[in-house]
């Protein structure tokens, strides 16, 4: 092995071991985020509604105004109902968010409420972060109070790029081993699978990691933006996204019809309105920012129209400039907000293939060292094995604990959403503790736990909401039915894995004795 290859192997091995646990959690929550609206429907039974033929902004405006006034918020934003999220999703700055245990600085946290798409009346508070928790874990480890979670994720992302490149350079026989997976040979199986998934999945893993890093370029690499905009906070965003702003007048005024403004916006773009943000609701200087929705394009478009709310007059029309359009295209490749079911499923499966890549990397590290470490009396293998179990099957157990908590906690409970998140972390910590305390049987027992928990989640959904699989399929509610079916599939895979693992354990016994 040349010194260069040896150095690449060193980098690949130790970056992998050091950051694999974090990377696995990021790939896992990222894969689930592909279906995060579907997970939302599963975790928020009150939003399992039919999308009406037409929805009215004027019908929902009073409720949104009242929510914003109640929280003393200067603005509110609504995501209009879609087939995937058939309710008005209203967010506004608030410091009385039910999801946090700690008092927050005013305006630092966004509260979210759902409104009925037919009447515009507020729905019962779901008391859960649902898919949003998994999604925000994916890019900032779900840290809400301090914005530090982005940095470990960015580090892991850069490390992933380095791992992809170094792994390809170390791999000696790319062509010869292109389709190779010798699953019967214990010594080779994990490395074969690691290589096959790594090489065959390379285009996707590279693309998703790179676009993920570019997503937060201004956080990781703030210098280019600080040159033209100086220290002025948000200067770029104001110019690129929201070039219009005006202060509150302090004089109350009746609003004109938001529906008419939305119709005008749709006429100008030739696309429907996706989001509306109203600044200074109820004020004479109230204005509305509208952005379009386009399910057929990759780009997450940021064209924006500003309307004077009391008169309904168009104030300003901002068309995304080329640099922003390029950025939105790259971001769109990562977010896949577009409507394309085969690609969504492929992203989901290839994201999970990233999990397989990381897990098999760990397994190879363990298998190639176990004998030597045992002979030398080193603790490394035992520690990393616990780390591997806790960060792979452990995060799956944590996710299932989160889903089960969602169905078990009473709806009247204070800080209910935070309690659900507590179950997630408790499940994860328990899995780590178990993995380190029972190294011999941790894999088998955690696989069995996953199978049991996944089935329990499906049963709890059926018993607490009445929406069992037969009913959701008959109703055509594929979001809820899909989550249930994926839970059952996971339970099946976990059960088969547990069986294989137990057979291996039985096979091991005579060798030892």
């Amino acid at each position, binding site marked *: 092995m040349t010194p260069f290859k040896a150095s690449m192997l060193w980098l690949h091995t130790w970056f992998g071991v050091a950051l694999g646990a974090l990377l696995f959690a990021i790939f896992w929550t990222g894969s689930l985020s592909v279906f995060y609206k579907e997970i939302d429907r599963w975790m928020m039974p009150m939003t399992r509604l039919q999308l009406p033929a037409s929805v009215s902004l004027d019908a929902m405006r009073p409720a949104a105004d009242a929510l914003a006034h109640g929280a003393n918020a200067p603005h509110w934003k609504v995501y209009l109902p879609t087939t995937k999220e058939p309710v008005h999703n209203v967010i506004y700055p608030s410091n009385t968010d039910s999801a946090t245990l700690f008092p927050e600085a005013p305006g630092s946290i966004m509260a979210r409420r759902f409104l009925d798409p037919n009447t515009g009346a507020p729905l019962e508070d779901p008391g859960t972060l649902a898919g949003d928790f998994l999604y925000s874990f994916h890019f900032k480890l779900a840290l809400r109070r301090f914005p530090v979670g982005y940095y470990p994720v960015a580090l892991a992302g850069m490390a992933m790029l380095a791992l992809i490149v170094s792994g390809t350079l170390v791999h000696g026989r790319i062509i*010869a081993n*292109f*389709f*190779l*997976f*010798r*699953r019967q040979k214990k010594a080779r199986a994990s490395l074969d699978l690691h290589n*096959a*998934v790594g090489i*065959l*999945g390379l*285009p*996707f893993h590279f*693309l998703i990691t790179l676009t993920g890093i570019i997503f937060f370029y201004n956080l990781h690499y703030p210098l280019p933006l600080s040159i033209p905009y100086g220290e002025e906070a948000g200067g770029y965003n104001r110019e690129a996204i929201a070039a219009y702003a005006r202060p509150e007048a302090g004089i109350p005024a009746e609003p004109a019809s938001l529906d008419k403004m939305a119709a005008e916006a749709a006429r100008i773009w030739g696309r429907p309105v996706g989001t509306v943000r109203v600044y200074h609701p109820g004020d004479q200087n109230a204005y509305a920012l509208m952005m379009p929705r386009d399910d057929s394009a*990759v780009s997450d478009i940021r064209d924006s129209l500003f309307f004077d709310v009391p008169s309904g007059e168009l104030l300003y029309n901002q068309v995304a400039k080329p640099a922003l359009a390029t950025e939105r295209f790259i971001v769109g*490749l990562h977010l896949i907000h*577009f409507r*394309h079911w*085969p*690609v969504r499923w*492929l*992203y989901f*499966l*290839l994201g999970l*293939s990233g999990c397989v890549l990381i897990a098999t990397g760990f397994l190879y590290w363990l298998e190639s060292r176990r004998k030597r470490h045992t002979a030398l009396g080193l603790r490394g293998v035992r520690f990393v094995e616990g780390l591997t179990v806790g960060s792979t099957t452990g995060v799956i157990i944590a996710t299932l604990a989160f889903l089960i908590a969602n169905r078990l906690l009473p709806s009247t409970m204070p800080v209910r959403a935070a309690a659900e998140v507590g179950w997630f972390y408790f499940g994860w910590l328990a899995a780590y503790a178990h993995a380190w305390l029972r190294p011999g049987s941790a894999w088998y027992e955690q696989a069995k736990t996953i199978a049991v928990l996944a089935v329990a989640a499906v049963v709890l959904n059926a018993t607490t909401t009445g929406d069992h699989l037969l009913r959701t399929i008959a109703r055509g509610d594929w979001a809820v039915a899909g989550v249930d079916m994926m839970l059952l599939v996971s339970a099946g895979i976990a059960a088969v894995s547990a069986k294989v693992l137990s057979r291996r354990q039985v096979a091991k016994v005579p060798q030892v004795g």
Partner: protein
Amino acid sequence: MGGVLALTYAGFCLLALCQDRHWTAATGRKPVKRPSRLEPVLAALLILGGLTLSLYRDGIILGLILWITVLTASALAVTFTLSWRPTWLRPFAQLSKWCQRVLSD
């Protein structure tokens, strides 16, 4: 969608059979005097056929995304077929033999 998957899967099967190890696993016989030049060409045509189909289905941008992600999925599918049920590749081995006959005639 199914067409894209089928074409790229078939292409990768032909490519895999160009390797002696996989040929032996699929047919149970040691390979003789192969592969011919035609198989990689046919494989490339099948995979490009998949590209054409996905571009036709979804346009340039979404079509390319679909094709690239399907490539990984179908190549992994071939890998797993070879690992669990290698004999399923026998029809492609027949196709490969036919290629050799065409070239030798």
